[in-house]
């Protein structure tokens, strides 16, 4: 039962990174790729009808985490207090950046929200990578299962490390390059003319960034948390996940060279899914490893809710996911194809 919910929450978070990942990435390249107001509106109309639904995956994953592993939710949310609240503020700024921009046609108004949207997207992406870095590295949990991390201490990986140290910042960079590429692939797929050309250029350069930072991250992870490979030696079939990630990365290079934007975008989806599953497989059954004593680590077994509740949840969660999948297929089908820019005053 706990294993099912581990996979369920992992699945929802991965869906979030893939779906919201492309609109975060579109935000990161917003100022670089789109030079005129029409091009910026094209990007916003490409993500406009879907970004809110994409972000719901984060909320639904959070809700499911709270439902399935309440002790983990309590411990990690209070421990990551400051970065989480900052993430909230960034989410708000980004949302109003998208939604308020088109209400006024004044160029200063538009520029302000363009920068807000782009900077918030960039910082959010880095923060999400840093968060993953913190989970992989472990946090200073005490015997009651609580901790509190300051934003930074000495930037080194020590037991009393802060949220930001060289390792978590490295993970932030992995996230940055990954979602930049992912978003650029998406924009290239949905647009035409020189906006498409610039997005392709960004995607090509940024894919190299993904390769370099990923190699560094794998080496660093092996050195500070050698235990991450234990599950792989025990269950070698788990290597299928890194393999999916690697073929995704290969596809990102190959299809980028052929300028096949849709295939490149699907490859970056596969890369994200593969890497997320690889990390989850390595962590299992830990949800939040302790950097203090390994027996303080929060696992799926010592944080799960009661059996009856988890069992009932199985039913409604499955129904909910089928419905959500139906909405998303219909939504993406309705807004398929290249963006035709609506007249000024309509759409975004």
């Amino acid at each position, binding site marked *: 039962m706990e294993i099912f919910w581990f996979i369920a929450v992992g699945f929802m978070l991965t869906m979030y990174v893939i779906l919201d990942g492309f609109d975060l990435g579109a935000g990161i390249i917003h100022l670089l790729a789109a030079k005129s107001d029409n091009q910026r509106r094209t990007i916003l109309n490409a993500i406009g009808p879907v970004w809110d639904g994409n972000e*719901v995956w984060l909320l*639904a994953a959070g809700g499911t985490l709270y439902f399935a592993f309440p002790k983990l*939710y309590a411990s990690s949310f209070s421990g990551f207090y400051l970065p989480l609240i900052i993430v909230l503020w960034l989410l708000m700024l980004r949302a109003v950046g998208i939604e308020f921009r088109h209400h006024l046609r004044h160029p200063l108004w538009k520029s302000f929200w363009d920068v807000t949207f782009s900077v918030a997207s960039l910082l959010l992406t880095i923060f999400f990578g840093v968060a993953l870095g913190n989970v992989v590295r472990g946090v200073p949990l005490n015997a009651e299962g609580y901790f509190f991390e300051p934003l930074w201490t000495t930037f080194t990986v020590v037991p009393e490390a802060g949220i930001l140290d060289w390792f978590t910042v490295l993970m932030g960079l992995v996230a940055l390059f990954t979602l930049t590429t992912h978003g650029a692939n998406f924009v290239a797929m949905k647009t035409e003319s020189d906006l498409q050309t610039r997005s392709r250029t960004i995607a090509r350069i940024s894919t190299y960034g993904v390769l370099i930072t990923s190699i560094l991250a794998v080496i660093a992870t092996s050195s500070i948390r050698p235990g991450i490979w234990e599950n792989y030696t025990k269950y070698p079939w788990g290597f299928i996940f890194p393999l999916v990630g690697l073929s995704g990365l290969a596809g990102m290079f190959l299809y980028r060279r052929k300028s096949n934007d849709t295939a490149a975008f699907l490859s970056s989806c596969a890369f994200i899914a593969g890497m997320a599953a690889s990390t989850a497989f390595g962590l299992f059954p830990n949800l939040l490893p302790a950097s203090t004593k390994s027996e303080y680590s929060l696992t799926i077994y010592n944080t799960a809710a009661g059996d009856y*509740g988890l069992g009932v949840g199985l039913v409604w969660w499955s129904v909910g996911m089928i419905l959500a999948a139906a909405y998303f297929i219909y939504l993406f089908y309705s807004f398929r194809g290249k963006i035709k820019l609506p007249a000024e005053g*309509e759409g975004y």
Partner: protein
Amino acid sequence: MEDALIMARLQFAFTVMFHYLFPQLTMGLALLIVILKGMALWKKNERYNLSARFWAKIFAVNFAMGVVTGIPLEFQFGTNWAKFSVFAGGVIGQTLAMEGVFAFFLESSFLGLFLFGEKKLGQVGHFLAAFMVFLGSWLSGFLIIATNAWMQHPVAYQVAADGSVELTSFWGLLFNPWVGWQYTHTMLGSVITAAFVMSAVGAYYLLANRDLEYGKIFLRLGVIAGLIASVLAAFPTGDGQGKNVAQHQPATLAAMEGLFETKEGAELILIGQPDMENLKIDNPIHIPRLLSFLTYNRWMAEVKGLDAFPRENWPDNIPLLYYSYHIMVGLGTIFIAVMATAVYLLWRSQLFSTRWLLWILMLSFPFPYIANTTGWMTAELGRQPWLVYGLMRTTEGLSPMISAGNSLFTLIGFMGMYMILGLLFLFLVLREVFHGPAHSGSSGQ
């Protein structure tokens, strides 16, 4: 610890009160937009479609505000109230997760279709998209109310070995006896807000002698929906909710009503100031025996006063609770009077030329917001000193490792952020109102 508790409570109170300014309009307006779209289909009158489009623009801004201010609340359960989450997560995790999985996906997917897909979907499809947005927002409301109802009146749980609670009956949680009245009362409150806002815009157009046809549509729908919702909010839902409180939270009822002494034939206090030093009401204006009758349907029934309960179980801010409750009830009564007058004049075909009433309707839109806010303050202050009634005190629910300084830092940040968001919201909505519905054009591609 004391400081940290106050900071965490202030932060939650501030963020939840600001948040609820938006969903109350979202939920009420979603219903009114569905009615406008239905009228457009039925009467084949393009004005109703333009009206729906006009309100959809305001709805979109309002919805975005509701979403961005709602996320911090779910986060705070973990960040500031970790012990509460550990204790109660096994039960209320159900309803909170279901809100994400069912309501949020539904709303967000169909909102995109509703706002940008009118031409693609056709008129019937667009009506259905509006209906799905309405369904999603009301489902979201239900699951949040079910969560709050469990905190007000915990049911369907057992205490596990580690001291936390576990769910024992899924349907017991969803059909908590507390849920029915609280849900209908809250939803009617949100319809009242939307009805007053719609009437206010309609009254403004008539008084300003512009967009007259739209002004009349808004007024007609606004005052009729406003009257129905105001009456139903008082009876049976408000009455039913009051009887729930009397039965399950008798100390809360005594504090709300300002009843310090247990007595038979208790009076209903209309106006007066609680004097906590001498435990009495100063300058009271009251109706004899009415409280006994309203609570137990008998004029001489005994109603328990605060003296019947140990002081550590009294709500910790009785004057504020008392005022919140009395403001809500007072405003609710005024709403019925205003809307009944308006509907009477509408029936006599005089509403659109009765300028004094149009002025009142135009200026009274802030009051439903106050009534909804004070209603929630009554529920939340009334539950004190409990976080989960009878099971966990508010002092026991706090995160153990968050210092007061860190909470103050984030509280100040929220205040700054919300001030800017609030100003932007007002600016954008007023702009749409001044822009007018006649130029709403076609929306989407």
